[in-house]
């Protein structure tokens, strides 16, 4: 694809030299709630993702944080067209993926891969490591068998595994090693963009840092662009250039890593940051926490106006009536809140 096609997707706020690789406009992913066994009637929708607007620059890592069920994985899957979005556009180098079908979509998919949370469930237990890592090459018809074998060995080496392991099965590996296998598989087809969906959550603390460092090294080496999904804010801050905070199907704040942690604007971001335990008893003793009331409402029936209002200590009357606008309050700092 010619480079200058990327220019087409630059919105007013992105008129910098940084090029946008991916832009999401008005993305919605609703899952129908049905009733009745034979004649399934649609009685409502789970609004898992309900109108997202953001972009990811080439070579950057955008972190996506938020609590369980807020729609992070669904966002990643809808971007990759593993789910076909209910509404909105996903522009990859200016091409709207939601309009692609068949061969055209398959060709684009090759440039986008996913790494999953659970290194135990995401690898086929009956396939050898060599076949797991090489499968995407076969699917996309890349190389001759001998070249593929060669490539698989290279990939294992790149992710820090012994190439000698090609004929072993996933159960012979630890969690961290399995996650490396998943990373090797994602890299097989030379993608530009990888959705990392909680790639370290299932791993031990002492192993997490190994995988984070690996992902960072690979990014530098291959110029990868990441959407990094996680619920651990300390990790997200470490790995991301910019961070998006999601709540109940919406992004409520998005800004650069440093700005988010030094100058959070949205009440939910503030609460989330204050809830993260810090491994230092002296700091913990002095910390003031914002304890949120209650639980996250159901995405099948989100609150009117601002979705965070049922738990927000700063809510006003208008918060129940009018949905706060998603706007850029300062350069590269987006937020949706009536108080900001």
């Amino acid at each position: 694809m010619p480079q200058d096609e990327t220019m087409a997707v630059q919105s007013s706020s992105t008129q910098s030299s940084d090029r946008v690789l991916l832009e999401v406009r008005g993305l919605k992913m609703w899952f129908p709630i049905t009733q009745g066994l034979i004649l399934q009637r649609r009685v409502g929708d789970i609004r898992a993702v309900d109108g997202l607007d953001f972009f990811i620059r080439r070579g950057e890592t955008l972190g996506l944080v938020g609590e369980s069920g807020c729609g992070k994985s669904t966002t990643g899957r809808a971007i990759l067209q593993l789910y076909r979005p209910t509404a909105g556009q996903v522009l990859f180098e200016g091409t709207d993926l939601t309009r692609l079908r068949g061969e055209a979509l398959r060709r684009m998919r090759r440039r986008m891969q996913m790494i999953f949370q659970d290194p135990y469930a995401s690898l086929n237990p009956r396939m050898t490591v060599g076949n797991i890592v090489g499968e995407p090459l076969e699917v996309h018809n890349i190389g001759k068998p001998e070249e593929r074998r060669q490539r698989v060995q290279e990939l294992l080496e790149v992710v820090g595994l012994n190439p000698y392991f090609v004929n072993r099965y996933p159960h012979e590996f630890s969690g961290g090693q399995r996650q490396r296998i998943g990373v090797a598989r994602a890299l097989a087809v030379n993608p530009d963009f990888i959705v990392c969906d909680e790639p370290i959550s299932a791993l031990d603390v002492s192993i997490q840092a190994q995988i984070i460092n690996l992902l960072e090294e690979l990014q530098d080496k291959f110029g990868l662009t990441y959407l990094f999904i996680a619920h651990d804010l300390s990790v997200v801050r470490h790995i991301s250039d910019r961070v998006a905070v999601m709540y109940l199907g919406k992004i409520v704040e998005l800004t650069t890593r440093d700005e988010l942690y030094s100058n959070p604007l949205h009440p939910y971001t503030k609460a989330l940051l204050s809830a993260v335990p810090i491994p230092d008893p002296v700091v913990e003793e002095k910390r003031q926490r914002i304890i949120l009331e209650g639980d996250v409402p159901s995405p099948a029936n989100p609150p009117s106006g601002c979705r965070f209002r049922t738990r927000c200590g700063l809510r006003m009357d208008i918060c129940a009536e009018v949905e706060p606008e998603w706007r850029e309050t300062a350069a590269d700092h987006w937020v949706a809140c009536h108080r900001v």
Partner: protein
Amino acid sequence: MGTLLQVKGLRTRFYTQDGVVNAVNGIDFSVDEGETLGIVGESGCGKSVSVLSVMRLIPQPPGRIVGGEVWFGGRDLLRVDEAEMRQVRGNKIAMVFQDPMTSLNPVLTINQQVSEALQLHLGMDKAQARKRAIELLEMVNIPRAADRIDDYPHQFSGGMRQRVMIAMGLSCSPQLLIADEPTTALDVTIQAQILDIVKRLKRELGMAIIWITHDLGVVAGLAERVIVMYAGYVIEHAEVKDLYADPRHPYTLGLLRSIPRLDAERKAKLTPIDGLPPDLIDMPPGCPFAPRCAYAIERCLVENPQLETVARRHQVACWVDVTSGRD
């Protein structure tokens, strides 16, 4: 303050098809009245098996407590009969588990489950038990407790279920609450709610707590003393401030260095601990951390160090003084 629980030389093994799993390998620890002890370490290091052994809840077979003593209230719990042990469990020592869905019965209402313990251990009648159950739910901040008490567990969120478990644990005013990763499966804002409740209850009720977690942040905010476990051993024990300010075991040091901190300057690169924890069936001779340890010397490969006191209330199992060369 008096010692409430004293564990000495506890050893627990599992006799499996693949071999003998050396899950807990002769550990010592104690808890004072009203104190919170944190137990940290990675998956499989023996945290749960240690406290399940204290409660005598190890599935047998394949498990067996093969040695040690657990002193509580003037007797060795490993040597009392099952009837006496039942009195201790739930009454004097309560336990909250990681996954509230597996420990709550899905076909009974919350009231039926919370009231049961009250009727069983405190001899309350149905109406008294219900009244007390509502109070307990209010104590752990369940909104509209009186209305919600007849709900079933699936009608509660994960955080609410965990709070119900804590309420049940507290129902008989135990002297010791053992909490095995009760917030690990929960979101941070919900975890913050629960930690807030636990800190308040501890102040109000004065009970002792053993809090198990792999999150060094949670322990920092909650515990007075901490033990760090690795491969079934206690490898470091210290007061919480000393553990973080002056960690002495290479594994503890490694853990603290490998986690990014929200409040600190961002590091260009994290410092991971290389390698993997050992196989508990086929343990290396020497120090269990030796294959991953940057400080290892020859002796480490052949001889396993015992916990030794290195400073006031600070014990470490390591042949090397990691502070030498520091100023």
